[in-house]
């Protein structure tokens, strides 16, 4: 089947010009995954050291290098799948490596727009835009934008949301 290789969002009938995320997003997420795996490795090192003596530390280190390498590879590939597009009437967000998701949020249904930035994100100057509608399950995120781009996106979304208010 041909459709297998093509991500779901590339099958959209009209052409969409996807906006990429900020290039530093990859660095941030890889760093974050390295940190997460490091915590796991430290936790695993304690019983390993008790069990194997000082060799346990080496095992933990080796495991960390392998796992972190794989994780970093996966994360850096995932980052590339993220993208957003602003169309006339709606905002499109795509992401996901294994499970591919394409969210479509009409401007008229936007209830709330959040900007947020975690400590690591702030260090690299990144901001996340979150868009909510009245449906509780639909919380669409656009992570890793330059603060200026994020604020501009927020303002554009807010203006469009006020123009075409559609309600529940």
């Amino acid at each position: 089947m041909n459709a297998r290789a093509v991500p779901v969002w590339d099958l959209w009938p009209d052409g969409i010009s996807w906006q990429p995320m900020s290039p530093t997003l990859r660095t941030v997420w890889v760093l974050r995954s390295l940190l997460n795996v490091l915590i796991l490795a430290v936790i695993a090192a304690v019983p390993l050291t008790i069990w194997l003596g000082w060799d346990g530390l080496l095992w933990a280190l080796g495991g960390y290098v392998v796992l972190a390498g794989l994780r970093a590879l996966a994360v850096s590939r995932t980052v590339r799948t993220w993208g957003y597009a602003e169309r006339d009437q709606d905002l499109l967000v795509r992401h996901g490596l294994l499970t591919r998701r394409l969210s479509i949020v009409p401007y008229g249904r936007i209830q709330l727009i959040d900007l947020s930035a975690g400590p690591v994100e702030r260090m690299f100057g990144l901001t996340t835009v979150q868009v909510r509608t009245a449906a509780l399950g639909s919380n669409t995120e656009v992570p890793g934008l330059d603060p200026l781009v994020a604020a501009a996106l927020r303002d554009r979304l807010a203006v469009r949301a006020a123009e075409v208010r559609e309600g529940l």
Partner: protein
Amino acid sequence: MSAEAGPVHGDEPAPPLSPAPYGPVPYAPSAPPEGVQRQRLHPLTPLLESVRFLTAAAAAVGLQMFTSRNFLFAVYAAVAAAVVGGIASLIALQFRGFVIWGRELHIYGGVFTRSHRTVPLDRLQSVDLVRPLRARVFGLAQLNIEVAGGDGTDARLAYLKHDRALELRSELLSIAGRPGAAPQTAVESTEEAPAAGPAPLVPPVTVRKLAVASLLEALPVQLTALLVFGTAFAVTGSIFGFTQVATALWFGFFAPALLGYLQSTVQMVNRFLRNCRFRITRDGGNLLIERGLTDTSHETVPVDRVTAVSFDEPILWRRKDWRRVEVWTAAVAQSAAVVKSTTALPVGTPDEVSTVAAEAVPELSSVFAVEQPPRRARWRMPLRWKRTGALLDEKVFVVRHGWWVNTYAAVPYARIQSVRVVQGPIQRMQGLASVHAMTAGGVGHTATAAHRDVVEAVAMAAELRKRADAAAALEAPRLS
């Protein structure tokens, strides 16, 4: 971050704060606005609210009395409870009440932690009149006021005299500007039994029919449960012998499963009791639903707030051709995880179902020719596959799913909030994808067209968005 985001906004300073805060002053949360009298709740309210605690306490005291053979103890306990409870109720009542002020309803409560809830009546979704059994004994009623929004946005007014509650409901509805809120009908029904008003849409569901329907719905679950538990009991018994110890251990081991089974049975009985004496009428722009055997409730569902209609068909109803109609609104979703929609018809024949459906959403038919997912998706859901499907109808998006209970959910295009296409790893290998159309309200309020062909799925999502915009453009904009 805000410092960097600043220049985009422009350099004008923020507008100055208003000289005085709007509404009641924040440092006196229990004070009603000046010149407006706060209305009290019924004096029996604290007693009724603590009825569970009182029952438990009475049981404990009774047990104590019988074991110690000290009958005076009960008298002391009763006197103490009366004095303490009376004083506590008097104090509690001082701090509770409500005020209708302009287009807002203010509800005050709490003795130690004061609360003051402001309900904007413009956002009113529905006002339900509920009468639990304990309140009916005293001729009291409770008003549940639902506003669209996040979690816990529903407000309760409990308890009020029944006719006062009816009056207040029509008052609230008329302030909210519900077209056809028809205060006259409600006021009329204060004088006589609520049998007055417009004729019911469908002939009332007889208790017999409802009982048969409930039994048929519950039968598969009950049979499966009995079968599973019976086999488990026989197997363990044949291994360990049917001694007392083994049986006790067995019950201990299976306690969670047994509890779950009991709970589902209780829920079935509750559902039956709640749907007894069901009566649905259409009054202007509202669907009025009256139901309940022990706890009665009068629900008002504004038709323009209906986000979707779903038709359920439990597996054993198929031969009888019965279906249940449920109505989704934005308000219902948040109030409880148990009840995720309002029942508009507990059980009905195809004619009755189509009548109710057409009232809930104009020109909605009740029979849909949905299209099945491609054949390669069949192994993923061997039983359900035949009964799964999706359809882009003229005005509604219809999905069908489920085997035990087969459900058609019809979402008018104008009510679709956001659309999502999701493709899992196995779906990708097969060239399939699922389309989710979300409506306002809880997580359950999503119409999912599962396992469509990937090209079709994306086209469907694009089409849904187009039609949603077109449908919403035809409507007058609604803020809530």
